[in-house]
């Protein structure tokens, strides 16, 4: 083997040594850092995030240490450097090896003999020992110290995971409570597809109703008792742990643990699986069908929070009237949800196939079922659309029921006839003599006045008051006639302020009577204008208001179709006569004073104040009791007072962390309050001080 070949072999060996050195230093430095974290964790429990950060730091330190070692050994990449390193450690080479790296001609054989005569093993062994031995020694020291730490400490530093609080041996464990540290594992129902969650030191467990809860802690000599609302929950011991398994209830509950040393409360806050939300988009509104043939498109949109199992359409067909009804129920359009969160149900509904009869009512809605196999399935439904088939001749009727317009009086001419007569009179004006023309105009004016009185009868009979002007004529009639439609309308609204009408909330605070009368009032006013023009023999000027009156009457007919349906007769019981205590006129109903607001908020306020009194105590047990009281109050509030529950949750967390909870408790106090009082008479700015 020539000197160059030996040199290359040494270079390879030194490279391997450098790599081993870098690896050793990396492992050792990371181990030392983790050992430091483990020791600190023994003294003071370190949080999961801190320990995870330590793990990242240890990796960084290892990389840096390895990098430094490799940089320091960078000389092994050069033959000249390795040769000089050998010359440095083997003086007997007398620079023969360095010289041989250059062309030396005839002296090469002599130099080869010098190099061949030296042994290189000793410096190589020393280099290897120095490069790897020191870090390995430190590593061994670290491992010995780690072995001396309490059980679980090294594992908490090396593999920090949520829930490893139970792996840490508490200091002063002699009289420790089994409830000092607890861990909850939540496994949601399989259908939800949610992952399991581990919670350390839980005060509240929020999970889907039906989730499996496994709560465990360190086992001690004292047995652990667990109860939900006084019902005992099984607790089993398993080695060094105790474990309690239960299912997340449907309603919020408080889980109480006790072991004779201390007690601990955990709020079980269920999250409900919402039923599918179904929206029937087509048909968009209730309708009346004139025919029983054709096809109706039905479209429904369905959404669910965890996935749909299926959807369908439900039809109920009711036939008959009065006391005799028959029903048929059909389901159709079944679709599979396939676990999707959104879906649609589309169907064309052939009316022919339903064998509908006149007067039948079709009640249609869409329904959907979710995949909840634990607390469900949840079934959601859309609003119901009602499609009614017209009865024969029903469309010809002006009024459906309730208060039909008065029967036609054969002695009266209709407004349409009066318009035709006036138009004819205007056309004949040039051909007629003055006196017959005046007489004819005033005759039409008289007919117009009679028709106006009939309209007034309809209006004021509905308003519940007589039409004095029309009955008495003369001055009162003039006064009523001089009103604008708006004034008349205001008078009508004032006259309809009865309790029964107020209760019926029609469009924009308008009672149905006023809504019905509005076009009739317009007609009434227009007839006044027409009468005046006809009386002074100006039939041309009378025609526009006469046509307005005709148009308003037409609108009144339509209004009656819309608003008069379903008004039952009003019967006023003569209470005084029934009670044999004198007479009493039918008075407007006064509603019973609403019951005072329930005292639930007041009771909760008292509980909060008791907890605050406890909280102000100087002793730790009082503070713990106060926090438990707030926890139980939160359980009570979860169902119907979410704002209060949220404020209390914040307050509890803050109190447990030992910080000032004034803000959160103030928020809770505010959530318990009633709506702010508005004091009349003070402006918003003026009352600011």
């Amino acid at each position, binding site marked *: 083997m020539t000197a160059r070949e030996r040199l290359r072999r040494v270079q390879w060996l030194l490279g391997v040594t450098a790599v081993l050195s870098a690896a050793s230093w990396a492992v050792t430095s990371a181990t030392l850092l983790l050992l430091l974290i483990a020791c600190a964790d023994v003294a003071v429990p370190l949080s999961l995030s801190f320990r995870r950060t330590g793990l990242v730091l240890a990796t960084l330190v290892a990389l840096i240490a390895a990098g430094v070692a490799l940089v320091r050994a960078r000389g092994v990449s050069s033959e000249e450097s390795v040769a000089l390193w050998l010359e440095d450690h083997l003086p007997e080479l007398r620079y023969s090896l360095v010289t041989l790296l250059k062309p030396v001609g005839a002296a090469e054989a002599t130099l080869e003999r010098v190099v061949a005569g030296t042994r290189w093993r000793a410096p190589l062994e020393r280099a290897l020992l120095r490069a790897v031995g020191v870090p390995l020694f430190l590593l061994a020291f670290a491992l010995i110290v780690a072995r001396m730490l309490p059980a679980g400490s090294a594992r908490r530093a090396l593999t920090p995971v949520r829930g490893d609080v139970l792996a840490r041996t508490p200091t002063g464990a002699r009289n420790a409570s089994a409830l000092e540290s607890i861990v909850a594992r939540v496994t949601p129902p399989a259908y939800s597809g949610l992952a399991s969650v581990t919670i350390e030191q839980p005060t509240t467990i929020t999970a889907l109703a039906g989730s499996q809860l496994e709560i465990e802690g360190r086992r001690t000599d004292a047995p652990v008792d667990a109860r939900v609302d006084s019902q005992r929950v099984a607790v089993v011991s398993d080695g060094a742990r105790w474990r309690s398994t239960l299912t997340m209830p449907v309603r919020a509950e408080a889980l109480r643990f006790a072991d004779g040393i201390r007690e601990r409360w955990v709020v079980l806050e269920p999250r409900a699986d919402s039923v599918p939300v179904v929206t029937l988009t087509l048909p968009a509104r209730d309708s009346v069908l004139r025919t029983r043939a054709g096809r109706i498109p039905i479209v429904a949109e369905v959404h669910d929070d965890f996935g749909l199992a299926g959807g369908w359409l439900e039809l109920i067909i009711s036939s008959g009237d009065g006391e005799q009804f028959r029903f048929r129920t059909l389901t159709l359009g079944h679709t599979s949800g396939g676990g999707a969160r959104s879906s649609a149900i589309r169907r064309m509904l052939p009316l022919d196939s339903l064998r509908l009869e006149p007067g039948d009512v079709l*009640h249609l809605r869409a329904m959907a079922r979710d995949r909840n196999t634990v607390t469900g399935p949840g079934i959601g439904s859309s609003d119901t659309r009602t499609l009614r088939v017209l009865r024969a001749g029903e469309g010809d009727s002006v009024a459906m029921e309730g208060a039909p317009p008065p029967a036609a009086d054969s002695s009266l001419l209709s407004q349409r006839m009066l318009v035709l007569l006036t138009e004819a009179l205007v056309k004949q004006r040039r051909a007629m003599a003055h006196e017959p023309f005046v007489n004819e105009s005033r005759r039409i004016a008289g007919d117009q006045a009679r028709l106006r009185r009939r309209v007034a009868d309809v209006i004021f009979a509905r308003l519940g008051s007589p039409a004095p002007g029309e009955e008495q004529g003369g001055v009162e009639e003039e006064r009523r006639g001089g009103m604008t439609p708006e004034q008349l309308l205001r008078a009508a609204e004032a006259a309809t302020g009865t309790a029964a009408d107020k209760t*019926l909330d029609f469009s924009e605070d308008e009672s149905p009577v006023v809504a019905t009368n509005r076009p009739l009032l317009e007609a009434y006013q227009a007839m006044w204008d027409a009468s005046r023009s006809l009386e002074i023999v100006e039939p041309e000027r009378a025609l526009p208001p006469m046509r307005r009156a005709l148009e308003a009457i037409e609108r009144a007919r339509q209004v009656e179709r819309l608003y008069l349906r379903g008004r039952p007769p009003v019967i006023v019981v003569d209470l005084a006569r*029934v009670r044999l205590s004198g007479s009493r006129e039918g008075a407007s109903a006064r*509603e019973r004073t609403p019951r005072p607001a329930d005292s639930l908020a007041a009771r909760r306020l008292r509980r909060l104040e008791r907890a605050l009194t406890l909280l102000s105590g100087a002793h730790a047990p009082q503070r713990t009791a106060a926090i438990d009281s707030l926890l139980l109050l939160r359980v009570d509030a979860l169902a119907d007072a979410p704002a209060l529950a949220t404020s209390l949750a914040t307050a509890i967390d803050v109190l447990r962390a030992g910080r000032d909870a004034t803000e959160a408790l103030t928020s809770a106090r505010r959530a318990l309050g009633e709506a702010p009082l508005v004091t009349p008479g003070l402006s918003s700015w003026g009352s600011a001080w």
Partner: protein
Amino acid sequence: MVSEFVFATVQYESGDWDSAPLVPANLIDSVARYTSIPVSPTGVIVPLSSPDLMRYPLVYLTGHLPVRLSDAERRSLARYLDRGGMLFVDDHNHDVDGQFHKTVTDEIRRAAGPLVELPNTHPLYTTFFHFDDGPPTTSQELNGWGDNLVHRHLMAVVRGGRIVVLYSNKDYSSEWGYHPENKRFLSVDNTRLGVNIVVYALTR
């Protein structure tokens, strides 16, 4: 100030809520005739989704056709019952399996919870008049209309020992559906249970 009791009939968007227009006047007449409760001489109609619902301690709901409440109606009803109101529902079809029965019981279950049989010894039957055999039988049951059954019990949703929803498929809406002036032709007033319902709603 002593407020009058106002008999309120519930108006809902689907179905024929106005199928028994004479019942309110008849019950008002009975309440006035047998009790000293201050009572309004006329009833009112209150939409189920209206906030005005909260003004009345007892509301009456009936009909023949399927009852499908809107979300607003369902929320309003749940809130009304939570705040201490009482709902009296009567199936005008006198059916056990009719569409009114199916749909309205489904809506009650969603808004208030499941209905259970009300025992015939319940205080409702002794609150004012005494009904030793439970709810009085109606002529609609006896003459074989409807489901040909004489229903032994009323149904109810009970919270904290108090009825919040009273459900009948005995068809009192037909039985009580006549003008109060005609009550004089009856040997025994058949609306007495209505008085018990009103008194119970006002005192429990």
